[in-house]
Each structure stands twice: as C-alpha cells, then as structure tokens.
C-alpha cells in the first residue's frame, strides 16, 4: 500500500471490461455477443446482491462505447430517484442527447428496478416503448418476480447466481496478494461463508480485516462484529437487564452518533437477535423478532422513529424481567 491515496477495494478491483469478469461465464458470453453485433435488446439482470449485475452492465457499456462510455449511459437508481416523474424527465432529456458514433442507441441503466411500484413500472414500460428507437434499458433487480410481466416479456432475461466458493476465494486471494495483505488461507473461506456469495461484502470484509492487521478467522469475525455498532448490542442488553432509562439514552446516542434511521437500527437489532454475542434463551429470540417486526411495520408506515424504538425497548424491559 504505497500510494498516498486509497480507495475501497470494491471500487479498485471492479472488473472494467466483460472479459475481466471471471465468473458468470454463460452470461458474459451472451453479453459479449451483443458487443460483437453492436446491438442488443432491453435487458433484465436479476439475482442476489453482490453477484455482479451492476458491474456487468457497466462493463458491457464500456466494451460497446469505449473509455468515455459514461456520456452515452444514463444511470438511474429506483431507490434514490424521487418517483417516476423524475425518471421520465431524465429519460426524456437523455434520449435527446447525442448518439454514439456507429451505434444507434444509448443505454439507460436502471438499478433496483424491483423497488418501483407496479404503477411506476407501467409508466416505465411506456417509456421503454416511446424511446426504443434511440435507447436500450438495462433493468437491474434482486427479485425478478417483483418486475411486472409486460416488462419481463420485453427484456432479455439474465439470472445471476450467487458466486461459487472458489470464485470468491480466488478473487480474495488475488486482491490480498496484490495489496500485500498478510492472511490465513482459512480466513478467506470464512469470509466466503459469512458473505454468502456476495462479492461486494466479501471484499469489504477483507479490506476491513486487513486494516486491523493479519487477516485471520478471528479477525474476520471481529471485523464483522465491528461493522455492527457495538452500542446496539449494549442497548439491547441494558433493556433486557431492566435498565430502560439507560437503554433509552443509548438509543438516542446511536441515532446521533451514527446518523442511523429507525429502519437502520431495526435492521441492526435484527442481526443482533440472531447473533451469538447476545446471550438469551432461544425462544426469546423469536418473541423479540416478532415484536421487532411489528415495530418495523409501524416505522415503514411513516410513524416516528424515536417513539417506535422507545416502545420496543420498553417491551424488551418487560420481557427481560419476566425471564429473570
């Protein structure tokens, strides 16, 4: 690590071209065909997180248009954009822009398309038809079943599988060697087990563990624990010990210090419930998850973060008291 600036390894080691993508061979082969023919239909990339969907979309565009490919690509993210109207305006404007030399279409990458409501997807379908002369859509989704049929039938479908163990371990080893990381072979397998075929997560774990020193099975577990604010666990313990006031104070501190939203904290709590650091009877884990789900639902409906989580902590205090 000799350079003065550093970036996250997920960025640094992202395949830039289709030929650099080492797994998902079938998919890569079909995509390369499009590059060869300099033509493609609308595409739908589906599969779990960290399997290379977005990477493949960018690599495809780069291979088609070359280095300055980004000027011919419109990147949209359904979970970040504000509604279909914003998307429509952006698509409209983009469709008017210059077309690349030699290729009659530009590419619109729409990530997390399955986060769109079916009404928004209907509108999207019309957009796809309206601008099909000059644009191609690449839709990316975790759950293809949440994409409406009329869109699915207009796209070539690509299913991305969770990465295989050897692919992940191989990639991690390559990165570790390249970065001069001191590592234990077994640790790489542990990273694979924890990340469940999600390459982004695997690489993030590797980099975080490397920041602590030698990458060992222990340090991998340690760093995964660190990525969850310790305070969340402490807060749960305090509530279960009957210290409602203390837990309530901690809740506010976590919200402020980490800038976490109510839903973020619910997610963290959920991880802790089934994690092994929290020593509670097994049947309690289920009870807690059940009430947490209720609280989560109330949050999603738009109610107040602080009140919801305070209610959760009050409930936990009662549970802890009954158990002891």
């Amino acid at each position, binding site marked *: 690590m000799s*350079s003065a600036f550093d970036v*996250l390894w997920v960025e640094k080691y992202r395949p830039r071209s289709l030929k650099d993508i080492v797994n998902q061979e079938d998919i890569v082969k079909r995509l390369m065909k499009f590059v060869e023919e300099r033509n493609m239909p609308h595409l739908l990339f589906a599969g779990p*997180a960290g399997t290379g969907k977005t990477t493949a979309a960018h690599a495809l565009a780069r291979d088609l248009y070359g280095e300055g490919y980004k000027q011919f690509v419109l990147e949209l993210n*359904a979970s970040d954009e504000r509604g279909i109207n914003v998307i429509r305006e952006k698509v409209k404007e983009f469709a008017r822009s210059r077309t690349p030399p030699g290729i009659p279409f530009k590419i619109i990458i729409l990530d*997390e398309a399955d986060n769109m409501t079916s009404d928004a997807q209907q509108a999207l379908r019309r957009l796809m038809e309206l601008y099909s002369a000059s644009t191609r859509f690449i839709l990316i989704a975790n759950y293809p079943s949440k994409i409406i049929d009329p869109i699915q039938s207009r796209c070539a479908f690509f299913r991305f599988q969770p990465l295989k163990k050897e692919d992940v371990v191989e990639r991690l080893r390559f990165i570790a060697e390249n970065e001069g990381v001191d590592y234990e072979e077994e640790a790489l397998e542990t990273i694979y087990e924890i990340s469940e075929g999600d390459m982004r997560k695997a690489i993030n774990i590797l980099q975080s563990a490397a*920041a602590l020193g030698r990458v060992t099975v222990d340090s991998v577990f340690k760093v995964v624990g660190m990525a969850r604010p310790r305070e969340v666990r402490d807060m749960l313990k305090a509530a279960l010990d009957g210290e409602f006031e203390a837990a309530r104070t901690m809740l506010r501190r976590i919200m402020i210090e980490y800038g976490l939203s109510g839903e973020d904290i619910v997610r963290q709590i959920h991880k802790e419930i089934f994690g092994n650091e929290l020593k509670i009877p097994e049947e309690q884990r289920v009870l807690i998850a059940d009430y947490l789900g209720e609280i989560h639902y109330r949050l999603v409906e738009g109610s*107040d973060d602080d009140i919801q989580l305070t209610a959760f902590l009050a409930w936990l205090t009662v549970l802890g008291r009954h158990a002891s």
Partner: protein
Amino acid sequence: MTRRLPWVIKYRPKRIDEVVNQDKAKQALIPWIEAWASGRKPAKRAALLYGPPGVGKTSLVEAIAKEYGFQLVELNASDYRRDVDIKRIVGSAARKRPLYGRGLIILLDEIDGIAPREDAGGLRALLEVIKETENPIVMTANDPWKEQLRPLRDAVLLVEFRQLATGHIVRLLERICKAERLYCEKDALKYIAEKSMGDVRAAINDLEAVAEGYGKVTLSLVKALVRGRDKSIDLWRTLNSIYYAKYAWQAKKAVTSSEEDYETLLAWLNDNTHRKYKEPEDLYRAYDALSRASLFLARAKYRGHWSMLSYVFDLMGPGVAFARVKGQVARERFSYPERIKLMAQLRQVRETREALAGKLAERILASRATIKREVIPFLTAIFRNSQDPTVPARIALGYNMTREEVKLLAGARAEEILKAAERIRKARPGEEGEKAVREERQAKPAGLDAFLGLGSRGGIAPGKGASRPQRSTRRRGRRRGSS
C-alpha cells in the same frame, strides 16, 4: 409515594359557601333544590347552569348535593349522544324513585358539546326525559345560546354563573399556597389570576405547574413561565390531566382541548412518560400506546385518512392514562422534549451520511441505500479500528471526504485521522501514487478535476457535496412532513 391529586381536584369547594362570587346563582338554584328536597316537584324539572369555564358550576352542584343529602349521579352528556342511549341511561336514572331519604341529582356536564345535526335526536330524547323525570336534572354549559339548545332553554331553569374577579382568585390561590406550605409572592398570584381571565381551574393549574417545577412561586418565575411560555403551562395542564385521569373521557378531553398540535403533544408525552411512570409494564403499555398513536397519525397524514386522528387522541390520552395499572405517578418534573435538539443533531449527521453515500454511490456503482447499508458500516469499522491511522486517512483522501464525513466514520478518532491525512497531503503524493489514483479516476473525468483541485484547497475539501443533503432532506421532508 402516595397518589397525588391535582390541585384542581384537591381544592375543589366542598361547601356551598366555599363557592365564591356566585350569590345570584345560589339564590336561583337553592330554592329549586329545596323544593325537590321537600317532595314538591317544581314546574321546571331541570336546570341549566351556564357561564365561562372554571367559575364553579359543577362545584356548586356537588356542594349542594352534599349539604342537602342528595346522591349525585354524574353523566357526561357527550358520551351518550344517540337518543336510545339518552333514553336508556339518563331515563333510567330519572325514573328512579328514592324510597326514603336520599334523592338523586342527575348532573349532565357540558351539554353544549352536543353537535346540532347528529344529535338532534339526542336532544329530543333529553326533553322527553326531562318532562317525566322524578329527580332533579342539572346540566352545565359554557354557551347556552346556541341555536340547537333553544328547545332546551325553554324547558329548564336557567342559572347564570358570573366570571370571577381577580381578587377572588387571588384569595383562593393564597389559601392553596398556605395549605401547601408554599412560598408565594402576592404579586405573583395576582399575575396568575389576571392571566387566567376568571378561570379558577386555569389559575390553579398554572400555580401548580410553577410550584411543581420550582418549589416556589415568585413574580419573576411566574412572569417568565406564564407570559413567555403560556403554551408550556397549557402543556403541563394537559399532561397532568392525562397522567392523573380517572376516566377515559377526561384523558381524551385533555388531548382534544389542548391548544398544542398533536405532534408537539406526542413529543412531550414521549419525553415525559418515563419520568412519570416507573413500573416496566406500565411503561411498556404507555409507550406501545404512543407508538400506535404515532402510527395512526402517520396514516392520517401520509394517506389522507384524517378520520384516523380520532384514534391518535384515544391512544395519546386514555391509552397513556390507563397504561398505568401497577405503579403510581412519580413526582418528577416535566421536561421540555429533547426532541427538538435531537432532531437538529440528527438532521446534520444524516445529511453528512447522505452526502457521503452519494459520493460513494457514484464511485462504487450502487444505490445510496445500498451504500448506507452495506458499505458505510465497513468503512466505519476501518476508520474506528484500523491499527494504522494512515489507512483510513488515505481512503478519506481517495474519496475527497469532508471533515464532517471523517467525523461520522471515525467518531472519537477523527482528529487523529484528519491529522494523518493532512500529513500525507502535505508530503504530496509520490509519482507512483498519483499515477495510481489517476488511473482509478479515468473512468470518470470529473473525478480527476476534483483530485487535482485537492492540492490547492485547504484541509480536506470542506463543504463539498452540499447540494445532495438538501435534496435528501427534501425527500425526507416530503414523505414525513415536518415531524
């Protein structure tokens, strides 16, 4: 800890002569009751006591009942609106014939709370009941001159209650101060009395709020609290009425008649209930009620189901009041909600997080949501735990992070990392490093500019990415309103 009565209840007049400044009302009402007591039914079988709030209408009825040996049956008119209810409940009480000695007085509070259209049938039923009643019916109202009450006005004895003079209220407050062994300045009591505009109940509540907060009542305290924070006095009153409510309708009324908007009220309840309730199960029931109140509020606000507001009041008022099953109301001071402070702090840190997520999203090619969920936690782990501070420092430089962003990731370790970044930046990247970074940035020409600009800017690019958080705030604001 004994259960503490709110002073408005504790210092209610118990004898007729304790009800001050209502001699005319007494002159009208007492002969009417005496007629009933002696077994002669007067021509008008019901009386309507009217006048501004807090002048002693209900108190006088209670005192009369006590001194003339009547049993008082209190019915809240607004709870029984439908004609069948009135016939059934009021009617059955009205028909009860006292076998010996003690007669009944039926008290219907707040008769003017009845709404004209939907309760037309209710009023008719009430008139029928009055015609046939065997027992005196006494009603109270603030404003008897409403159109819908006209038929009632003709059928009853109208008794006017006068607004109290400041002097009367001051004397009452003095009595309470003495009984409570409280240090009270006369000028302070005068001030409270004037502000109450003749409402004894309001005056006593204000006195209690100041006394509970500060243990003494001085002019300067009262001036600061009653003038500058009229609203907080109202809130104190509302909260007290909720925590000490005996009946569900009292708690609900406390909420619906509060001048505060329900979001403020929710915030006050959220930050004070844990001071007032100490039993875990009471606390859980109370906070679950608040949680559901907040849920109903969201349904009303974001989906336009405004009829849901009614449940918000139910859960905030009675829901919190009757959550207390086991414990007593603790004698802890109310506090201003930390919420306002909390929200300001939260907004700032969330904007920083949003800006950082936006910056990373462009480079790592994932949504801001994914970045926040999957990447920032690991960055946090690196920034807080790496052995060598230059590791996070280099990453901070690599993403052109602002001071606030480094603080968010590094927590207590921020200064150490910022210093390391400064050292690296001053030393200037070596040829090799610079080239490596430039290669990284080639995919995105704009990024290179940012990188080249870094050297001339002082520190780690302050204020970069300011446009994003604003956007995200708007987004949030749109969805969540101004909560």
